């Protein structure tokens, strides 16, 4: 190896190098340890609660089933003729939520799918004051019977930070508050 005269920019040597490295990497450790945990994140104010409204439901068909007409039946093979035909499209959901009589949500939720035959989904997160609240929920899934929605009205006492979930229990066929 050639003993070449080599000049480098001023660099710390010996203990100075170690001191600089300890200072720099010590500061790095402190920074990473601090900002990985601080400042704390407060999602809600101290006296707030959260309502999560979540419905996913396949609405009723938009129309009634009807018998196949003779002309329609004639176009089909005998073994392919259904007794009745039903519209594929599903009803959009009408969702209304009121808190203490004041409307919070009033949405028409369309069904998914190109043929509009999928489930309609709604998710809303509503920050409300903690304490006693009168919650009224209406859900209609049938365009032919908008005057007969599912309904639920209850008085709930929400603790600070509490999450109230408004959902639909398809098994029981009712709106649930949990």
């Amino acid at each position, binding site marked *: *190896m*050639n*003993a*070449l*005269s*080599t*000049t*480098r*920019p*001023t*660099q*710390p040597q010996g203990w100075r*190098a170690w001191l*600089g*490295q300890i*200072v*720099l*990497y*010590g500061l*790095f*450790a*402190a920074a*990473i*340890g*601090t*900002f*990985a*945990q*601080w*400042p*704390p*994140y*407060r*999602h*809600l104010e*101290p006296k707030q609660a*959260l309502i*999560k409204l*979540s419905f*996913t439901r396949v609405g009723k068909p938009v129309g009634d089933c009807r018998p196949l007409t003779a002309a329609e039946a004639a176009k089909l093979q005998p073994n392919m003729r259904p007794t009745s035909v039903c519209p594929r499209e599903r009803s959009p959901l009408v969702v209304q939520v009121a808190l203490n009589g004041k409307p919070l949500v009033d949405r028409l939720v369309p069904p*998914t*799918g190109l043929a509009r035959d*999928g*489930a309609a*989904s709604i*998710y809303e*997160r509503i920050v409300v004051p903690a304490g006693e609240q009168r919650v009224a929920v209406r859900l209609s899934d049938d365009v032919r019977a908008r005057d007969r929605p599912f309904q639920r009205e209850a008085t709930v006492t929400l*603790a*600070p*930070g*509490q*999450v109230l*979930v408004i*959902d639909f229990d398809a098994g029981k066929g009712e709106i649930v508050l*949990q």
Partner: protein
Amino acid sequence: VSAAHDAGNHGRRGLRPAALAAWRAAENALDALVTPAANPLRHLGAIGFFAFWLLAASGIVLFALIDTSVAGAWRSIQALEEAPLALGRLLRGLHRYSADLLVLALVAHILREWVHGHESGVHRFAWLTGVPLAALVFALGIGGFWLNWDALGAFSASATAEWIDAIPWLGTSLTRNFLGTEAVSDRLFSLLIFVHLGLPLLMLFVLWFHIQRLTRATVWPPRRLALLTAGALAAAALAWPVLSHPAAALASVPEALRWDWMLLAIHPLTYATSPAWGWVLVVGTLVLLFALPFFPRRVVRAPAAVVDPAHCNGCQRCFVDCPYAAITMVPHPNQRIGRTLAVVDPDLCAACGICAGACPTSTPFRRAEKTLVTGIDMPERPIAALRERLRQGLAALKARDAGSVPLVLFACERGAQPGGVRAGGDVLRVDLLCAGQLPPSFIEYALRDGAGGVLVAACREGGCEFRHGESIAMQRLTGQREPHLRARAAQGDRVALVFAGAGDAQAIETTLERLRTAVARAPLVPEESPA
């Protein structure tokens, strides 16, 4: 010395040159504090890799120790906190803080490459393959919080699901999976763990692409830097331990969460604005990063290296030294068995000239042909032109003052620009595309042609625009790499090497002065050139 000549940005104005100047100042300042070997700004890619290795190692151990069920995950990690000798805290802290380090290294690495203009040209491939890594790092980091299934993990999982649900064409609601504690099943949890194990494998695959076009990619930092980084993370893990929040309870939102702002900033941002804005920010940033290489720039790309088959003997030195894997060896068209020929891919060539410096035919002593033709050369600055510049320059200096002993400065044009040298005097400056372009035989040639001493000025260690130019030059001059400087030529303090990046003009001036003094003390005995 005129500082105005030593800008390093060649007088350009705008945001990027200003950012580059600031970046170099920061690099130089940290060099002076901790030495270049321990300077994190000079090893950001390697630090990113190191963080990934630490994450993988600590993650494998964690995976062996934790219970991967909804009910057992939090309990098993809680038990780790109580492990003797704080080993559990060390393990957990290393895992988390390595993830934070990866984010910091990633952001700094992107910034560094941008200020150096590395989003286009030969760097375009690495840039484009690097952008998906940014998305993967955050996806991996955020998903890691969920596996603990404490209040923070549950909040992050729920927030992420809400954010994804904001995409209008998604039919199924992810949020419903996190509406209540009973909604989270072991099956879902297994899926989350599977994703957390699968994403690093995908990342490794993309990383492999990311460094495909780099020769000797640094996937491990210098030992001292690795020790310091690991030590800092371990110290942070013990001094600021990563502790669990209470077990997940989706029926409530915790009053305050100890927040990791490096990994989880997207949640507060989304809640402070809206999910749509969150998407605009993330997708917009990714699209911008992808689009940057395609923005028109006024930078003219230098012509690629050219191979002369008649002079290429297939020695492979250029193939080994090329920092961007632009050279491949193919069977030589002269049909001689075993003979190979270097072939340059112009799309990959950065036009650094390191290959020309490596070529054994790049010796100025050759007299057989009128014009010096080398096996591989740079059209922008051929070896023959360098020899002519050297010959004529030395002749002119000697003609001006017959009694003077001129010095030759071979300098990387991207390094320091000493104004005093430009003004003239006893120094002949020969600009190189990179210090690695200099064939060591040129030094001997200069000394035999009347130069009193030779100074080679390379960029700072770790600061070469072409990745390895300064280290390759040093290895050749110190005899550790072929072609090497003959030991006899390096004797007598007549040859010196200085590492001087932009802003280090004074270092060149000082070294030249030292060389001048050495030459004056021991005048050169003229030696006949070899035939």
